[in-house]
């Protein structure tokens, strides 16, 4: 009996049985409710977001590592492993959960008032309310500091103007956490998407994350009451701390996509016969499989190390950059290599690989591009910031 790539590393020693029980529930859910349909969602560029969000809510996967307000309060390790199992289904599905829990909910949880938390978090935890997170703008991606979206005081109220681009869940969301320039620097706002002046436009023609909704948000004189502003943070630290949470999830998640590719490729190579032998029996194939297994296992060890830090002494943004950079990059390489093992079949949606591969292009870019994380690490090593 061959051993699976993850089993070979005996990684279960790095998590508790409870963490693994939660991951197992997510895996079971994904195997039953996501995998059989996701190729079709991807092909059509649609996803039953509301239904899925409700289900993830009843599992307890939304904001799972937050305490109180209906959230499960799990370890960071459980959160990471859950992200991995979600992304073994599809990066778009994991994105949907990441944005809800680690970006939208986390922003309110970390920087909101008690009232704001009570108003939004419990219903976001159940999936009744869908959230999105608007930081990026068309002209300000890697450099969000320059954002043009702004909020101006009008008496007690705020008036929001501008636009956001590439916003996951944007057109299904009930509420958006929007970051905007104010006279006090960058501030976060809780913006109900039915506010007059709020418009969302779905971004079409994507070849990646097709089983995920990505939108442009446009704000034209959106009037917001005073208590829409998140009072506990000012400046870019606000959105960046949310991104840290989500990036941590990506360090695990990307490996879920990689694992699914690798398991598919191993299985395929054992069953695919060319020149009268399974292609898995050829040394070139075995080298590919062995190298990918090494990168997957190393990536897992890195992710589990970060989650251990997060669960014990805390993890720094630079350390999370190590995980996001390495694991998104290696996952993408693994997907491409697996694609080659499947030959022609590798390019169809009958197999998960090209879908994962295309998805990982987004994962490589969003939440800080590969280059930006490289520069963060470079900054940490040299004390010199190369990105400005």
């Amino acid at each position, binding site marked *: 009996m061959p051993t699976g790539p993850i089993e070979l590393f005996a990684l279960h020693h790095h998590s508790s049985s409870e963490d693994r*029980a939660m991951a197992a*529930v997510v895996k079971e859910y994904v195997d039953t409710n996501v995998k059989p349909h996701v190729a079709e969602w991807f092909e059509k560029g649609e996803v039953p977001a509301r239904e899925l969000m409700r289900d993830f809510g009843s*599992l*307890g996967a939304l904001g*799972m590592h937050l305490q109180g307000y209906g959230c*499960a*309060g799990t370890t960071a390790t*459980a959160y990471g492993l859950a992200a991995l199992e979600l992304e073994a289904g599809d990066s778009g599905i994991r994105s949907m959960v990441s944005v809800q829990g680690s970006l939208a909910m986390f922003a309110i949880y970390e920087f909101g008032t008690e009232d704001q938390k009570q108003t939004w978090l419990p219903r976001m935890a159940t999936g009744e309310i869908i959230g999105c997170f608007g930081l990026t703008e068309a002209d300000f991606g890697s450099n969000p500091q320059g954002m043009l979206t702004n909020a101006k005081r009008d008496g007690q109220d705020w008036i929001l103007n501008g636009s956001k681009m590439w916003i996951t869940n944007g057109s299904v969301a009930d509420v958006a956490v929007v970051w905007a320039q104010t006279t006090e620097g960058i501030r976060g706002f809780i913006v109900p998407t039915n506010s007059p002046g709020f418009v969302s436009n779905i971004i079409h023609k994507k070849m990646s994350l097709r089983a995920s909704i990505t939108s442009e948000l446009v704000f034209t004189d959106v009037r917001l009451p005073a208590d829409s502003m998140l009072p506990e943070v000012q400046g870019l630290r606000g959105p960046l701390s949310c991104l840290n949470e989500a990036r941590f999830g990506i360090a695990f998640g990307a490996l879920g996509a990689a694992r699914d590719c690798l398991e598919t490729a191993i299985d395929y190579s054992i069953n695919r016969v060319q020149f009268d032998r399974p292609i898995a029996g050829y040394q070139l194939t075995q080298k590919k499989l062995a190298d990918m297994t090494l990168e997957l296992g190393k990536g897992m060890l890195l992710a589990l190390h970060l989650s251990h830090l997060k669960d014990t002494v805390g993890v720094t943004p630079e350390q999370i950059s190590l995980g996001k950079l390495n694991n998104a990059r290696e996952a993408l390489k693994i997907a491409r290599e697996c694609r080659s093992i499947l030959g022609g079949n590798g390019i169809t949606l009958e197999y998960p690989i090209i879908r994962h591969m295309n998805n990982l292009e987004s994962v490589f870019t969003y939440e800080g591009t590969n280059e930006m994380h490289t520069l963060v690490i470079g900054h940490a090593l040299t004390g010199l910031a190369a990105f400005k």
Partner: protein
Amino acid sequence: MKIAVCVKQVPDTWAEKKLKADTSTLDRESADGVLNELDEYAVEQALQLVEANGGEVVIVTMGPERAAETLRKAISMGADAGIHVLDNNLAGSDAIATSAVLAKALEGRDFDLIIFGSESTDARMSVIPAMVAERLGLAQVTFAQKVNVDGTTLTAERVTDYGFDTLSATLPAVVSVVEKINEPRYPSFKGIMAAKKKPVETLTATDLGLDPSVVGAGAAWSAVADFAARPPKPAGVVISDEGSGGTSIADYLTTSKFI
């Protein structure tokens, strides 16, 4: 109401199962142990009844040490407590002995209802619920596809070959349920974390006052004398249709006694 759900740890349904050469019993170490799938319906039914009528759900299992994981899994769906009968002397118990153990574990605890899955995926005998009911002197309603409780009256639809019978019984009673009855929930993360703190009683056969001579492999009424691997599947028959395809298929089905 107070409901007990009896669950069993079985080898993973998808794993290749092996018998042990020395004892001719199932090699439980060779495959991952999982909660018997059909028992999930029993747990779900108990949870739904308690959600509607109030009360508590206690999960009961007999099995080796690692069956504790299965007990926790069932509890993590939302049950309140567990009872684990754990005793090396119980290994190799047949259905008769198992029912004696379960009956002892359930006895005297004032359960209004005892729910089972309709069968275990490893033994597939479906007799334990009836045996336990008989031992406890309780009404038994097996193979239920629908269960209702109104006061102390239980009404159930019992699946038969031709449809279903509607039966009623007075509580306390023993019920076994089929898959049609509900859609088992996934354990929620909160449930998984709470399960760790739920009380689980671990009892030996002696704690239950059982005579060691009536349980375990030694007391089994039947034993496996010999076993052999299933012969490899013969290649299928290919019938090419030259006008007589239908007849050939019918002939084949007739010789194989399908029609």
